[in-house]
């Protein structure tokens, strides 16, 4: 695959107006699948989370999971959508072995929720309203692994292996209307939108929303039109965008790539494109073709979903606050400055902070860890910070600092060990003997030794020049291999110097 030529981003925006659209798939965290009572759990040995329904065995019939319907309605309401008084399922027919039935049960002409909007906030505090076309229920597909072949991925694969554990997991697909006017904010808006959806589903408690596990997946549609032109340009749909950072990068890349092609007089092919995290590029997938004739028709095995007005009002009353309101409240509760708070929001770390604070850490300590050390390590590894450690682990490290077991420096060391998968913070402290030496006896012995080695310093301290103590403190910290609390050492140095 040759690397595509890209136009400079600012130049691309001078000539073209980007129009965006998103399809976000949210896996619901129900206990069972959408249409069968098989467990909805991530991982597990292949093909151990199936029933005859998941495998499309003859004679098996799907039955709708009531909890999934409730979750879908809640999500629709949180997206400001109208809830359809009657909605039904449809079969989307295609030949691909990620589903055993040769069709996916989805919704087509009667989605459960439609016509909504989501307010999102950009880094500079600007509020943007994203129009929502619809949110519909469907089932996830199984996982294929392609084996053999020379070029990897799918082309030339000799055979494929299928695991149906994920087949039938409840999904809600949220589709936006075309988004105009994003201009230079387009990449950032893409990230902010997906982040807002993540906040909403976490707030509702209806999805684990872990992008690295595919709980939340985004397909980004991008098209360009020359300035002043009414007609929309041809769009591409970029799939496989599995982190907030990637969403932003993929949209920027597509704008630059398409601008280059158009400016050379070329045309954009309407196609699916795949995002490659490692190279930061997209490559052409399958062009739209005959195979996209999905021959949707109403699913004859299922009955219409007709939510009562009482159910809708019950779920509406239980909605958590809107993300924008929630942010305002948290900022006030935590007492953060504008800058501190924006830093957290822009890093997409708000939920991590909330969870860390509720696990016992102070807001400032939680902020310091997530936007500091963890963000730095995540950046170096090119992953989302939330995939490195859990909020509970961060809170535990901070608790060790607060109780005096660890200094900041030791705490960073422990955190790195946690990230490396060496165990829980307390286990690591114990196993590696990282705790601060809090035994005054050991400290005093080291201090006395350092003082007698530097009699001139001892003299100065006795004359009242306490800043001279630094040299002794340094020697003691070195002798303790950094595992001492410098403030306590200083206290003891002054005590010993004047006592002798």
């Amino acid at each position: 695959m040759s690397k595509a030529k890209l136009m400079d981003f600012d130049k691309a925006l001078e000539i073209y107006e980007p129009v965006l659209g998103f399809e976000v798939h949210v896996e619901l965290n129900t206990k069972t699948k959408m249409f069968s009572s098989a467990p909805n759990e991530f991982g597990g040995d292949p093909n151990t989370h199936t029933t005859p329904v998941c495998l499309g065995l003859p004679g098996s019939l799907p039955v709708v999971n009531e909890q999934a319907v409730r979750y879908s309605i809640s999500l629709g309401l949180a997206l400001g959508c109208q809830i359809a008084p009657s909605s039904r399922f449809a079969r989307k027919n295609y030949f691909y072995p990620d589903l055993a039935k040769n069709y996916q049960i989805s919704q087509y002409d009667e989605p459960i929720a439609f016509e909504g909007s989501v307010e999102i906030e950009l880094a500079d505090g600007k509020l943007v309203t994203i129009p929502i076309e619809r949110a519909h229920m469907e089932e996830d597909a199984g996982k294929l692994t392609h084996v053999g072949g020379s070029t990897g991925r799918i082309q030339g694969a000799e055979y494929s292996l299928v695991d149906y554990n994920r087949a039938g997991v409840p999904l809600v697909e949220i589709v936006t209307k075309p988004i105009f006017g994003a201009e230079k904010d387009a990449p950032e808006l893409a990230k902010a939108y997906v982040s807002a959806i993540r906040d909403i589903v976490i707030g509702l408690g209806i999805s684990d929303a872990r992008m690295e596990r595919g709980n939340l997946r985004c397909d980004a549609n991008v098209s360009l039109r020359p300035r002043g032109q009414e007609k929309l340009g041809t769009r591409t749909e970029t799939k496989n965008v599995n982190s907030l950072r990637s969403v932003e990068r993929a949209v920027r890349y597509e704008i630059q790539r398409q601008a280059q092609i158009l400016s050379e007089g070329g045309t954009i092919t309407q196609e699916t494109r795949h995002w490659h995290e490692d190279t930061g590029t997209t490559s052409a997938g399958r062009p739209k073709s005959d195979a996209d004739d999905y021959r949707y028709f109403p699913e004859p095995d299922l009955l219409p979903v007709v939510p009562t007005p009482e159910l809708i009002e019950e779920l509406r009353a239980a909605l958590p606050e809107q993300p924008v309101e929630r942010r305002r409240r948290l900022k006030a509760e935590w007492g953060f400055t504008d800058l501190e708070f924006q830093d957290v929001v822009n890093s997409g770390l708000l939920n991590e902070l909330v969870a860390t604070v509720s696990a016992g850490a102070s807001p400032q300590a939680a902020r310091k860890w997530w936007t500091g050390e963890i963000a730095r390590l995540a950046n170096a590894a090119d992953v989302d910070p939330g995939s490195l450690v859990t909020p509970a682990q961060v809170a535990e490290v901070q608790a060790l600092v607060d109780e005096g077991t660890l200094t900041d420096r030791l705490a960073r060391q422990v955190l790195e060990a946690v990230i490396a998968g060496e165990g829980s913070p307390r286990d690591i402290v114990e196993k590696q003997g990282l705790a601060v030496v809090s035994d005054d006896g050991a400290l005093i012995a080291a201090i006395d030794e350092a003082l007698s080695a530097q009699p001139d310093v001892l003299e100065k301290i006795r004359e009242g020049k306490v800043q001279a103590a630094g040299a002794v403190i340094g020697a003691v910290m070195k002798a303790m291999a950094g595992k001492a609390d410098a403030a306590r050492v200083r206290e003891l140095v002054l005590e010993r110097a004047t006592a002798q």
Partner: protein
Amino acid sequence: MSDISEERVRHLAGLARIDLSDSEVTALTAELAQIVDVVAQVTNAVEADTPATSHPIPLTNVYREDVVTDDVLTQEQALSGAPETDGSRFVVSAILGEEQ
């Protein structure tokens, strides 16, 4: 008359992955056209304000509780009908398309 043409039959055969000979296409075009015409008589039997339905039984909201039941298959059971497996997964022939 229906709008079943030979071209449409070939398209449908392609989507359904059925290999048809020219004479089969000709025969099926005539047969499908006849079937569609017969089914189309239903439209004459209903009033314009009859609501569309996708199910013969007037039921709605038939749900299942969100509880794992004991009809979950073991891996061995799940794979028991597969022509070929690698021990834990179904083996299928090479895929030249892309996932949906």
